[in-house]
Structures are given as C-alpha cells and as structure tokens.
C-alpha cells in the first residue's frame, strides 16, 4: 500500500525541517509532499536547502486548498492512501503504519488519530468544549462516534483522494468527517498521542476557537440536510 503524507505548510520555517526529518526517519516507506501555501517566511528556502520534496503555491490559498493540492498530486501519482500531517511537529509519525493497517483491514474511508479514544486523556479548555460539542453533533446527525473530530492527523482512502481532488466543497475539517461518515464508508479511530506544537504560531486563539467551533457546528447541521 503506497501512502503519501501531505504536509501543508504556511510560515513553518522553524519546524518544517525537523518534522520532515522525524517523518522520514520513522517511516522511510511513506512518501511525503510538503505543500507550501504561499508562505511569506523562509519556508520555501528551507525546502530548497534541506532538499525537502514539495510544491509551492504562488499565493496563500488556505489550508483546504493547500491540502487539496496534495490530494491532486496523490491522485495523479496513484497513491492508495493519504495521511494529513501537520508541519508544526504535533503529529508523531509512529502511528502512520497502524493507521494504514486499520484503513485496509476495516475498509475505512477515514482513519483518525484520536487523543481521546481510550479515555485516559480528556478534551479540556475552550477547545475541549467545542470538541465535545462537535462529537455530539456528529453522533446526532450521522450516528458515528468520533471522539476526536478536530484531530488534524487523518488518513484518507483512495476513494477520498478522488473526492478531494475533484469535488467542489471538500475540506480536511470535522464537518467533512461527518459528511463522509454519513455518505461513505466507516470513519475509524485509533488511539494516539500528540506533542505540543514545536514552533510557529497556532491560529486557534480563543476568539478564533469560538468562530471556528460555531462555523463547524453549523456546517455539520447544514450538511446533514443539504449534502
């Protein structure tokens, strides 16, 4: 099974090189593609200097579009699965082989690396509240139980690669997970640990968290009836 790790990067010069080094060290059999989303810092330079595989978007187009660039690449190069992988070092590559195995064995369309599956860690803070609310909404609208809908580490099946590469409204976000759980194959989770981000700045500050969560919740409800 050929797996491609898509690493969207927007202003990630600080940690991109380390992230890619640990990814290739732990999973040499997994290809990766950095999608530099029109970064204004030295991300492109780091990619050149460190000989990191990747493509450069000429303008900043947002996470969704950056990820879909990778999906198009995966489709055109015949990959069987794609894993969405953060450039900031939060994700641990050690889970990728297990995710691929689960994807294949369970015939899943999405496998999520969940921080909360076994219940030893619980979602906390403003993001925790939002995360639980999204879990509840997905349960109500699709019947699926997703303990960590906002986890950014997800593996997608071949079918999903096609959908993301050619569809109109496909974002690597929780509302899409809900849509896939309802319309496509199973969405499965595995237990995983994540690290603190290793550098750069998260755009999920409190105001943004509230905006993001309300938009996601509304989007889940709307797509339940419209998609």
């Amino acid at each position: 099974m050929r797996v491609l790790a898509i690493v969207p990067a927007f202003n990630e010069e600080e940690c991109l090189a380390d992230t890619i080094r640990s990814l290739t060290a732990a999973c040499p059999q997994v290809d990766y593609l950095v999608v530099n989303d029109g970064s204004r810092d030295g991300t492109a330079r780091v990619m050149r200097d460190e000989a990191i595989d990747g493509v450069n978007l000429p303008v900043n187009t947002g996470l969704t579009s950056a990820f879909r660039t990778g999906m198009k690449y995966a489709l055109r190069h015949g990959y069987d699965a794609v894993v969405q992988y953060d450039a900031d070092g939060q994700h641990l590559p050690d889970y990728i082989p297990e995710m691929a195995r689960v994807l294949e064995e369970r015939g899943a369309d999405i496998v999520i690396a969940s921080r909360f599956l076994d219940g030893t860690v619980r979602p906390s803070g403003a993001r925790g509240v939002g995360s639980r609310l999204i879990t509840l909404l997905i349960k109500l609208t699709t019947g699926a139980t997703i303990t960590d809908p906002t986890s950014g580490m997800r593996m997608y099946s071949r079918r999903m690669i096609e959908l993301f590469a050619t569809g109109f409204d496909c974002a690597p976000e929780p509302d899409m997970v809900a849509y896939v759980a309802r319309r496509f194959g199973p969405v499965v989770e595995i237990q995983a640990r994540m690290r603190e981000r290793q550098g750069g700045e998260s755009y999920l500050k409190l105001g943004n968290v509230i905006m993001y969560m309300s938009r996601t919740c509304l989007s889940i409800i709307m797509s339940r009836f419209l998609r």
Partner: protein
Amino acid sequence: MLPFYLRIMLVLGALAALAVVGRKVRRQKILVEDAVFWVVLAAVFVVLALFPDIAIVLSQALGFMSPSNFVYLAIIVLLLWKVFTNSAEISRLKAKVNELAQEVALAHGDTAEKDGR
C-alpha cells in the same frame, strides 16, 4: 400618493447611478454585462417616479400601509437578492482561483525533482 420628495429622490438617484455606471464602463472598471443590472434598476426608478400610480396600485393590491413602504421593501428585497448572487459568484471565483493556484504549484513540479534528484 407617492410623496413628491421620494419621486425627486428616485429620479436623482437614478441619474446619479447612471452617471457612475456609465463612467465605470467607459474606464473599463466593470463589464457591460454586469452593468446591465444597474442600468435597468435606474430605469425602473425613473419609471416609478414618472408614473407613481404603478407603485400606488400595487401597494394597495398587496395591502401596504403606504406606497413608499412598498417601494422601500421592493428595493431592499432586490438588493438582498443581488448581494446573495454576489456571494455565490465570489464562491465560484474563489474556487477557480484556488484551482488555478493548485495547478500552477503542481505544474512547477517537486522542488526536489526540479533540482534533478
């Protein structure tokens, strides 16, 4: 009866709109096909100002308190519709721009491939 000041405003507004739209078209700031909406809207205003009976009869038939209420409501609805279609068009444009950017990125190829590795 449509108040006299509203009729004057309709005519002045229509003339101002026509002047602005005309200038933008000449300076190539708006496509003629997109300017059509505004020209037609201005024409409707002028017709309403010249023949206020249209608004009066319609507003009475629909049960409005006064013809001006009817005119205001009609304009608000029209503008809301226009804003919504703009939203939809911006969505389509966003999708197209992203699509183009993605193709440019992929066409330029891997940074590693480019270095001949």
